[in-house]
């Protein structure tokens, strides 16, 4: 059971990083200003680097000879374990920043907790990621505050982005049986501990950004629709098609 739980943990962490990295890299060359373009690309590259480590460990634990690339490019929709939030379309720049902030606010306490994992390889990957994600959260929360507490137009866009994306955070803070198995094996934290930190960060940043948090509890809105169990939203198929087409069209192509 412990190996199965470890495999799932690596897929969940790896797929979150991979899919958000894929989304973010689509901005390369298209962000509003040059400085943001480079910053955004840096974040995408950090995430793809983390995905590589998680998925390589997943393949190792699984023991069927699958590499990180095999897992990234040859799995189908239902085999992906990323949360719904990270697969949501880029939308406008405010929507991209809000998605990044909501994920970072969860990702940082999650990685910090994983540094204490009973599995040393998990702890090592988490420790490397913490330094990167610390900066991601610093950057995304700063931008959410600036734009939320900015001009009327930027405020309206950030409020719309928060209303749109906040419901997707429900599955990040509510444990399912696999999360419980991961916690029971000492591989990862109880999600309620991460949830408390996530909610505190989101509440503080929303207050500074003069944004109103949606009143419906996020975990109820999407109770039966969870990316981490392989049930994804419509846009996810298109994302995979774009990400995987080369390996699908030319199997084992490399350069």
């Amino acid at each position: 059971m412990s190996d199965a739980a470890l495999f799932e943990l690596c897929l969940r962490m790896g797929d979150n990083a991979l899919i958000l990295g894929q989304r973010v890299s689509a901005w390369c060359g298209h962000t509003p200003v040059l400085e943001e373009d480079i910053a955004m690309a840096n974040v995408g590259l950090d995430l793809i680097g983390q995905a590589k480590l998680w998925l390589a460990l997943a393949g190792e634990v699984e023991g069927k000879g699958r590499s990180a690339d095999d897992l990234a490019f040859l799995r189908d929709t239902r085999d992906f374990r990323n949360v719904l939030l990270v697969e949501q379309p880029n939308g406008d720049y405010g929507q991209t920043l809000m998605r990044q902030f909501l994920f970072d606010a969860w990702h940082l306490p999650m990685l910090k907790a994983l540094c204490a994992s009973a599995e040393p390889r998990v702890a090592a990957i988490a420790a490397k990621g913490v330094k990167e994600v610390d900066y991601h959260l610093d950057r995304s929360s700063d931008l959410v505050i600036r734009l939320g507490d900015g001009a009327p137009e930027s405020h309206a866009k950030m409020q719309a982005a928060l209303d749109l994306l906040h419901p997707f955070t429900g599955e990040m803070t509510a444990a399912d049986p696999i999360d419980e198995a991961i916690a029971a094996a000492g591989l990862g934290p109880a999600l309620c501990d991460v949830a408390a930190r996530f909610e505190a960060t989101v509440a503080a940043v929303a207050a500074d950004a003069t944004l109103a948090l949606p009143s419906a509890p996020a975990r109820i809105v999407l109770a039966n629709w969870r990316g981490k169990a392989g049930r994804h939203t419509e846009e996810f198929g298109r994302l995979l098609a774009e990400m995987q087409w080369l390996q699908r069209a030319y199997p084992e192509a490399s350069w």
Partner: protein
Amino acid sequence: MKNEWPLWEVFIRGQHGQSHRHVGSLHAPDAEMAIKHARDVYTRRNEGVSIWVVKAADIVASAPGDKQALFEPSNAKVYRHPTFYDIPDEAGRM
């Protein structure tokens, strides 16, 4: 032009003990963002241990036209250059 972010000059200290060096410039709405942008644009390959940013408009520069008056006189005073000393290798960079 009114909506353009101001220009900032970026100085980075590569290692402890060295001085900050000018590495380039960027646009940012304020100092805090300028530091973040400098980090993202100029330290991607582990170039720095410290960043300074200065508003380009706050830099007072010598006028190119004054070059002769400012720099020629010292060029002619060869006795001010410490070229008559042998510097031992152990002394390192001077």
